[in-house]
Each structure stands twice: as C-alpha cells, then as structure tokens.
C-alpha cells in the first residue's frame, strides 16, 4: 500500500520535475501492458508469447476510430479495448487448453496470424501504419493535445488498470488462479473447472493489454505493425522478467527500464543491442527474481 501511494505520488509530480513527459507516458502504457501480462503469467502460470496482438489490435481499432470515423477519445478507447477483449475471447477459446510451452507457442502462432491479417488488410496501411492521429478532447473538455492534460489522463488510465489487476490478484478469483498454477490436477479434483478460470484470466489480461494499446495511440499518435510483431511480445516478456515475475510492481519498473534503455541508449548506435543483451544476461545470472523480486526477497515482503 505504501509502495502504491509512493508510486502514485512520484508519477503525479512528473510534469513538475522537468522529466520528459512523453517518455513517462510511454512508459506508463508499457507498464500497464506488462502488468496485464504479469497477471496471466505471474499469477495464472500461463506464459503468453502473443500479447502484442492485444496491444496492436486495440491500437489499430482506436486509431481507426479516431482518425477515420472521428470518434471522441473516450469512445475510441472503449472501441479499442473492446476489440482486444473480443480478440482475447476468440484466441482464448483456441489456446486455453494447451499447457506450458505449448500455450506459449500457440499464442505466438495466433498472434502471427493476427499480424498477417493486419499486414494484408487495407485499413492498417501496411507497414506505413496509421499516422497523424488526432488526439481530440476527452469528454469534450480535456484537450489531449496539451502534454500535461494528456499526461494525467494516461496516468489515470494506468492507475485504473493497475488497481484492477491488483484487486484481481488479491480476489477470491486470484486465489483459485494461484491454486491452479500450483497444481492443476488437484484443483480439478476439488471440483474447479480450471479451463474457465484460466480463460477468464486470459480475457482479463488481454483486455487490459488492449487498454494499454488504446492509451498508447494518444501518446504515439500512430499505430503500426511494430506493435503486433512477435518481437513486441518478446519485449513484454522481458519487461516483466526484468522487473520481477509475479510481483505487483515489477512489471512497472521493468517496463520503464526497457523503455529507458531503448530511448537513452539510442545514441550508442550499433552497440545498443549488445548492451541490451548484456543487461539480460546479467539480469538472469545475478538477479533472477527481477529488480523488484530481488528487493522483495531482500526485505522479505511481497511487493
């Protein structure tokens, strides 16, 4: 709880610190995405290697709604998130019964199919993406082209998603989910239809990942194939691992670390990938629980 207040306060004062708000906004979107992913893998034991499809789908849907149909931001967000939710339902039905690595791979495969669809359909404009998306006025009052206003709107969206995830983890549902992760046959023998629980977790996770994708449209003002590509799914996994799998705050920290790496190492040119690779190697070899996971372990509390 203290950690949460601290995080909220820190994030709330960003616009007054001179930190570049767009960087933080982008970080927030990815943080929400990683948290949504973490809900599934860290608490449900289901490693999805296709989460980018939710991010990208919501992004395209929102972008299209805003740019082509001229919908208002709030409707755009709802439309995008709903799109991701629908995709989660469809892919979930296909994927949920596979176990372990096979689940990971079937989600990857599904996301590649989604990628292919977006590559071929005209509304996404192929690899050019949807560009120059108008930000508009939220509820007709908040002008999202003002960086500070936009910042607080994104922050609000992030906190909303974050709290929902936190609550889910610590809900009756979350308890069952953990039990299933621990020992699925036993959960079945207790009378739980485990597939249904996993499915709900998957859909929740996909929907929240979609919310992240919708919000990101307002920050980046474009929607492109990058967000649906498998390497994005990989990045999500990395963020979560670097921060700490199965910790509440880990994915947030992880997302910021990775984004910062991409942003601030950009000047190193070709060495970027080497540095990134080295960070991962060091991460796995020395602090395997992730940044927050190690801290939590050190202080012996759950974060």
């Amino acid at each position, binding site marked *: 709880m203290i950690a949460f207040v601290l995080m909220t306060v820190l994030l709330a004062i960003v616009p007054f610190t001179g930190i570049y708000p767009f960087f933080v906004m982008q970080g927030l979107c990815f943080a929400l995405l990683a948290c949504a992913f973490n809900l599934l893998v860290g608490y449900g034991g289901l490693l999805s290697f296709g989460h980018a499809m939710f991010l990208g789908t919501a992004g395209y849907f929102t972008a299209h709604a805003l740019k082509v149909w001229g919908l208002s931001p709030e409707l755009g967000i709802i439309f995008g998130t709903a799109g991701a939710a629908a995709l989660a339902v469809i892919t979930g039905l296909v994927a949920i019964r596979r176990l372990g690595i096979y689940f990971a791979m079937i989600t990857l495969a599904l996301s590649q199919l989604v990628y292919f669809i977006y*590559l071929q359909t005209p509304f996404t404009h192929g*690899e050019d*993406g949807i560009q*120059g998306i108008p930000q508009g006025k939220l509820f007709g009052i908040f002008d999202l082209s003002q960086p500070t206003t936009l910042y607080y709107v994104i922050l609000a969206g992030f906190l909303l998603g974050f709290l929902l995830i936190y609550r889910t983890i610590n809900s009756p549902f979350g308890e069952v989910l953990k039990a299933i992760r621990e020992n699925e046959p036993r959960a079945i023998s207790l009378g739980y239809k485990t597939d249904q629980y996993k499915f709900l977790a998957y859909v929740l996770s996909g929907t929240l990942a979609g919310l992240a994708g919708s919000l990101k449209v307002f920050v980046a003002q474009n929607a492109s194939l*990058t967000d649906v590509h498998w390497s994005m799914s990989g990045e999500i996994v990395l963020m979560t691992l670097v921060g700490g799998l199965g910790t509440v705050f880990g994915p947030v920290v992880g997302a910021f670390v990775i984004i910062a790496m991409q942003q601030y190492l950009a000047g190193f*040119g*070709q060495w*970027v990938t080497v540095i990134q690779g080295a960070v991962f190697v060091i991460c796995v070899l020395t602090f395997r629980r992730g940044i927050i996971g190690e801290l939590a372990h050190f202080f012996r509390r759950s974060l």
Partner: protein
Amino acid sequence: AGDKVVKIGVLNDQSGLYADLAGPGSVIAAQMAIEDSGLTKKGWKIDVISGDHQNKPDVGVNIARQWIDVDKVDVIADVPTSSVALAVNNLVKEKNSILLDSGAGTSDLTNSQCSPNTIHWTYDTYMLAHGTGSALTKSGGNTWFFLTADYAFGAALERDTTNAVVAAGGKVVGGVKHPLNTSDFSSFLLQAQASKAKVIGLANAGGDTVNAIKQASEFGIVSGGQKLAGLLMFISDIHSLGLQTAKGLNLTATFYWDHNDGTRAFSKRFQERMKTKAMPTMVQAGVYSSLIHYFKTLDKLGENPHDGAKVIAAMKEIPTDDPLFGKGKIEPNGRTIHDAYLFEVKSPSESKGPWDYYKLVTTIPADEAFTPLDKSTCPLLKK
C-alpha cells in the same frame, strides 16, 4: 529569436537491415558536412546527435519528438525506411521543424504526404522505377516479371515500374508477392523462370534483394538469358554479393563514388573514417549533400531562425550545387532533383580493385528522372 546554434539529429537504422547503407556512415557524412560548410569558423555552434529508429515508426517518432522537445534539434536527417520517414514527416510538420530525408524511398513524401517542412533528397521510388524500368525496356528488355516484397513500399515500386515499362512499350507478364524477409527465393525464382520474361524486376530491398540475386545465379537465371533488375540497390548490397554473383545486374542510382573527381575526393575521405572501410552509398552521400545545402542557406540567412518552414522555403529558393550530386534544384513539393544514372555491375575481370563495381550505361537528366511537377499530387502545389 535567431542565433548561431544548430543541432542536427541523424535518425536512421543503426543496427538492422539498413545499417550499412545508412547507419553510422550517415553520421560520418553529417560530420563531414559540418566541417566542410566552414560555418564553425564563422562562429556557429553545430552539433550532431544520432539515434537508432530500429525501422519502427513509433520508436522513430519517439526519438524525434524527444530530440525536438528536449534536445532542441533543428534538423532531422536521413531517416531511411518509408514507414518511419512518413511518421517523422508528420511530426516535423506539427512541430515546425525540418526533415531532410535521404534514406527513404517512398515518393509519397513529395506527393500526398508532402510538407512545407520536408525535403526529400536522394532518390524515390518513381525515379528508381523510371530509371531502371524505361531504360531497360528501351534496350530490349520488353517483357517483365516482378518479385515484389509484400508491403507498401514494394507495391509502390512495382506500380511505378510497371507504369514506366508500359510507357516505354514493354509488357508485364506476371509477378509474385513474397513476404518481407524471405530467406529462400527458389520457389519464386522458378515461377519467374517459367514465365520466360526477359527481365525479372526485384521490387524489394536489402536482404531480400541480395538473397534473390544470389539464388538466381544458383538457378542459372542470368546464364539462361534472363536479365535481373534490382529496383532498389545500393553499393553496399553489391559489395555483400560479390561481383561474381552480381555481375551484369542493372540498377539506378543518383550517386557513385567513382563518378568524377569531386565524388572520388569526398569518398576517399569518407572511407578513411569508416570503421568498415566502406565507400559511401548514395544515401550517405545524400545526407552530406542535403546538409551542405542547409548550411549554405543558413549562412545566407545569417542566423538560425529556428523556424522550420522558413528555412525550408529559403532552401527551395537557392539552386543546389555540390560536388556529389552536381547541379539541381528543390521543387516546391520538397523534391530535390538532380541527374540519375543507370549502371551495370562489372564482372570480376572488369573490376580494377575493391569497390570498383559499376559502369555507367546512361545518364538520366534531372528533369526526366523525377516525378514531373504536374503529375505530383502534393497539396502544396494547389495553392
């Protein structure tokens, strides 16, 4: 609020597919441009920073936005990869900054997406298509088969080339769309072979083109009498193919290091600075030349007004002229026009040494090489 401080941001692919044709080389070219401009001696303070957009539009836009907002960058240069270029083009317009694009090929930059803040310097799909398409058709290669990368850029290249081929009296007998980053082309090549077309046009880029050419030689396509035309090829690609494989290939470019004394002098200096000891590509040369023109304009203005549209307008008023691209001008739609050349790749026996790769087939004069203004769909022209 003018001053004499300028910041250049070279934004390109530093680690991926296009790192050799742009990448660190473009940064070196930008530094050379600053040195050669002589402005620092006149009290200007000019800095270069560089960034890797990883060929992802959102990464590119993020870096560019931060450069403009935080680092106060005046000019974003290079930006290969059409999707990134278009995204940055939008941003630069919104922020009233400057984009001097050298690396991207999409002719949209000076057509539907043209902007008062952007100049498209080195080449575009129209010019490549017309250079290679009409020249080859006229010299007898009048039936074409396309291997097209399945993305917007590939489609544009194919479309423009088809137009050129048809205009020159040729015919397209077929084509196949392959996914981006295909490693094996044998299936497609078999189809091309079976089509009996005289020319196989490669409407793709980078690794795809190189692999296609390499495998074409394996399947005996060229020795079987068909001609290969790389629609977008850089000297770095030829270098990686080796002359044995690439000989006889036709391609269009606006710059070749061994073209005249000016280009040779520049290229030698450039090569010394490169870690890989590579010669400049036309993209890298374009970065140099576009910045030289920019500095020339600033010098004339006497100060940096930090107003993108204003500087660009001034740039368009001055004819371009530098040792690398020769004389030319910037059209109102932002298109720089200069001469283009159709080259043929030498065979190993013709080549006199490393990097001696091309022989000139024809020169395409500046006013024929690029989209004629009356065909441009740029909204700026309608005013």
